Structures are given as structure tokens and as C-alpha cells.
């Protein structure tokens, strides 16, 4: 079975929200269990968590602004790369993502491009 890589991007509706340390710990455990379940199927590739604070955005004329909060209000909270047989399987993985417990949050599912010059 041929496998492709997909990136699941966690989009939080409001990156300014402050969670209590206890809440953070619960989310962390839930996220680790979710990723552990994918890894147990040998379908986890890599993952990156992105703390909300201190982000910067560089614009085309070298203008630096604080925070990733531009035209789109959403903040990316992290992303993981998985192996899946189809986009539908990757979507199934995404459905289990604890980020979706937050109203308005989404998970974007994107196939990793091969080196075919379509960038």
C-alpha cells in the first residue's frame, strides 16, 4: 500500500486565550495520547508544538510585526506530519485531535508536495 505524508495543522480561533496550567496539562496528555495512538499504528512522522507567545511575522518589504495575528485571526498551535493511505485516512486522524474540543478551532489537512516543481 502506498503511503503519502500529510500535515495536520492545528488552528486556534483565538491565540490570546490564556489557559490554566491544569487545563494545559490535560490538553497535553490528550494530545500525547492522540499522537501516541497514531504512532502505535506506525503512521506518525514528526510533530512540532508552537507556543502562542512571542511569534513574529516578516512581510515582503522586511516589515516585522509581533504575533501571527494578521488578516486571519487564527493562530497555529502546532502541526504534525502523518503517513496515510489517503486524504480520508488523514482526515480520520484529524478528527481525534483534542484541539477540536475548542469551539471554532479547526485542523487543516494538507498533503505534502512531492518534488514536482508545483510550489
Amino acid at each position, binding site marked *: 500500500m502506498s503511503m503519502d505524508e500529510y500535515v495536520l495543522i492545528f488552528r486556534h480561533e483565538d491565540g490570546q486565550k490564556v489557559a490554566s496550567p491544569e487545563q494545559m496539562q490535560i490538553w497535553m496528555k490528550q494530545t500525547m495520547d492522540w499522537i501516541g495512538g497514531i504512532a502505535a499504528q506506525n503512521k506518525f512522522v514528526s510533530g*512540532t508544538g508552537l507556543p502562542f507567545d512571542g511569534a*513574529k511575522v*516578516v512581510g515582503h518589504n522586511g516589515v516585522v510585526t509581533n504575533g501571527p495575528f494578521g488578516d486571519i485571526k487564527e493562530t497555529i498551535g502546532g502541526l504534525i506530519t502523518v503517513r496515510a493511505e489517503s486524504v480520508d485516512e488523514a482526515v480520520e486522524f484529524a478528527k481525534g485531535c483534542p484541539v477540536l474540543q475548542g469551539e471554532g478551532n479547526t485542523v*487543516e489537512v494538507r498533503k*505534502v508536495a512531492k518534488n514536482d516543481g508545483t*510550489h
Partner: protein
Amino acid sequence: MKDYLLIFRADFSKMLNSSEEEKKAMTQKYMDWIGDIANKGNLANQGNRLAPTGRIVSTGNLVTDGPFTETKEFIGGYSMIKADSYEQAVAVTEGCPVFILNGKVEIREVMTI
């Protein structure tokens, strides 16, 4: 040194309609830029380019087709770099080809999962 994720955002719809040569030239520009970072010992992981199609899963397991390339801040890919500070990370983005598309580079400090 810390790891920083660079997320390339732009309206990539123009790119999709460009010729093979233009696409190739753009890829070459990206390779030159990233190669330069690697030469300086600042590349942690080349990262990925993302295909323009995909799905969005929302609360309640609602699945929609997308994402939409004409969005100005559409994510085209990402790379991971090493830098001592945000300031140094900002300096690394200089010359990134995404600026040619009038795009942006979002710089995010990485937390190991």
C-alpha cells in the same frame, strides 16, 4: 540555539497558473535560499512544501474541502531553522522567495512535543 519554525504564507494562486519554467525558477530560488541557510549551519529541518489541496476539519467533525489558495495567507510550506533569538531568526528570512509573491514568513519558536 533554539529551533524556530518558518511558515511561508502567501496568495499562491498566481503560482498555480504560472508556466513550468516560472515554477522551476521559483523552486530554484527557494533551494538557493535554503541552501545558504544550511551552509551557515542554521538549518534544522528542510521541512515540507504542501500541495494546494486539502481538507479542513472543524469542531463536531465537520469536514470541508479546501483550503483556498486565493487566501492571502495560505500556507505553502514550512522549514525549521536554528537561531539564537527571534532577531536572528528574522535575519535568516532575508531573501526568502515568498516575498516575491508579496507573502509573509511567520516565525514561531518551537516546543518539542
